[in-house]
């Protein structure tokens, strides 16, 4: 992967000048590649994406070390808008719709950089076709959509921008099983069209199906990386991320790890 589309080298991120959230993260996304970023809560996955796109600046954070290159250009510290214009969009965690706008307005704004209205229209139709649910909701105010509907909307909005690299933070969050299949089908199709993806996902199974390479983060560091297949076979990943027991069967949530249970509370 010599000519990676996105390359992070030893990136460090500092929040409020005191909290060091990333402690030297290096990762690469090949052109048209798909990379999954896994990790526990608070590991720094979202921070990584925010550092890449630059929105971290408005969270009182900054990239304090290392380098980030996108399509050969150093982008660390650049203004988000210009990074996004160069072909990278970031779907932030937390269903960040524009609440007072209708679904269609949200999508149109997603395609605000199209030169002419006809191309925008085409992209819009493309999104409606990919996620038909959005077509039904087009005149609804985004802020009143259900959680899952909002999730679909932000993904649709990102597609509108026709990026070459998409950073997605937890796309399956809050989606019903059938919707997850649909959304990932869309992502598969986009991959087929040459879109590169960096995806943070807790639904490890589908993520590893989609990705060809994966990284596992733990408290601000990459602790494990490998091809998607390898990772899927790793014992820890199987236990902690896929929820499988040693022989590959699914454990029941009812009798998991009661040994770790500490009944100090209400004891």
């Amino acid at each position: 992967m010599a000519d990676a589309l996105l390359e992070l080298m030893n990136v460090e991120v500092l929040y409020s000048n005191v909290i060091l959230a990333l402690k030297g993260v290096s990762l690469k996304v090949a052109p048209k590649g798909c990379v999954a970023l896994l990790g526990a809560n608070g590991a720094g996955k979202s921070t990584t994406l925010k550092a890449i796109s630059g929105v971290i600046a408005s969270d009182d954070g900054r990239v304090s070390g290392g380098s980030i290159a996108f399509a050969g250009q150093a982008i660390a510290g650049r203004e988000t808008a210009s990074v996004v214009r160069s072909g990278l969009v970031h779907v932030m965690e937390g269903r960040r719709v524009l609440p007072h706008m209708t679904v269609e307005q949200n999508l149109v704004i997603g395609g605000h950089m199209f030169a002419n209205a006809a191309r925008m229209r085409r992209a819009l139709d493309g999104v409606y076709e990919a996620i038909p649910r959005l077509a039904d909701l087009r005149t609804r105010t985004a802020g009143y959509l259900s959680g899952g509907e909002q999730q679909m909307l932000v993904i649709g909005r990102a597609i509108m921008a026709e990026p070459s690299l998409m950073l997605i933070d937890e796309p399956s969050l809050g989606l019903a099983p059938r919707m997850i299949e649909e959304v990932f089908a869309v992502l598969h199709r986009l991959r087929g069209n040459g879109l590169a993806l960096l995806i943070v996902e807790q639904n490890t199974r589908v993520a590893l199906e989609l990705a060809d390479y994966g990284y596992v983060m733990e408290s601000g560091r990459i602790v494990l990386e490998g091809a998607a297949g390898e990772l899927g076979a790793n014992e820890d990943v199987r236990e902690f991320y896929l929820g499988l027991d040693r022989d590959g069967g699914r454990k029941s949530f009812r009798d998991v790890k009661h040994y770790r249970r500490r009944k100090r509370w209400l004891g």
Partner: protein
Amino acid sequence: MLSAEGVTLRFGGVTALSDVSIQVRADEMLAIIGPNGAGKSSLLNVLSGFYRPQEGRITYQGLDILGRPVHQIASDGVVRTFQGTHLFPHMTVLDNILIGRHARMRGGLAQAFVYFPWTRNEEARHREIAENIVEFLEIENIRHQPVGALGYGLRKRVDLGRALAMEPRVLVMDEPMAGMNTEEKEDLARFIIDVREARRIPVVLVEHDMGVVMDLADRVAVLDFGRKIADGTPAQVQADPAVIQAYLGAPA
């Protein structure tokens, strides 16, 4: 214990719930599932008094609670967690949990102004309860961090802690496990099981992770487009073709 009868809820042209009836029995875990936009969150909002349905009745411990102020319903024991998080981002984890104690504390403004020892002792008493919850949820290391700086998963845990601090008599949870990896889901599942064992309270759970729902729930209700299409044990529901068609898609 808590029940909705014939609830219909409309927003302008959108019918979020139509004629939905649901009963939460004492000491059971009821899961509500359904596709996105089916009306699950809306139903929880109706139960906790935030939405006022156009038709139907909500009863809690035998009393009609429709139209009661939200905060009263909450302090009477119908306690919930939120889809997404609705924590107080600028407050610390501990303060968020202490908010759960608010309705159980008594001191008035004037007492707070003078801050005599009894105010301080009351604070300390409740602080102790909050600390127990912190310990139970294993979030000791972040207790003084503002919640806004936490990742999604930890927030969900704090959200649960805050609800527990309210001493719920019915615990209503909206997608508590979204955004967690399997290990964390297991932890949370454990917390929920513990709470139920220790408190013997009913839990209403909305969740999209079928593994969790099928393993934990005693009973499952399925909503689709605002209507209840199924209600039964996990096994019954999982086998229901209407449910598979509307929700599960390929067998999980």
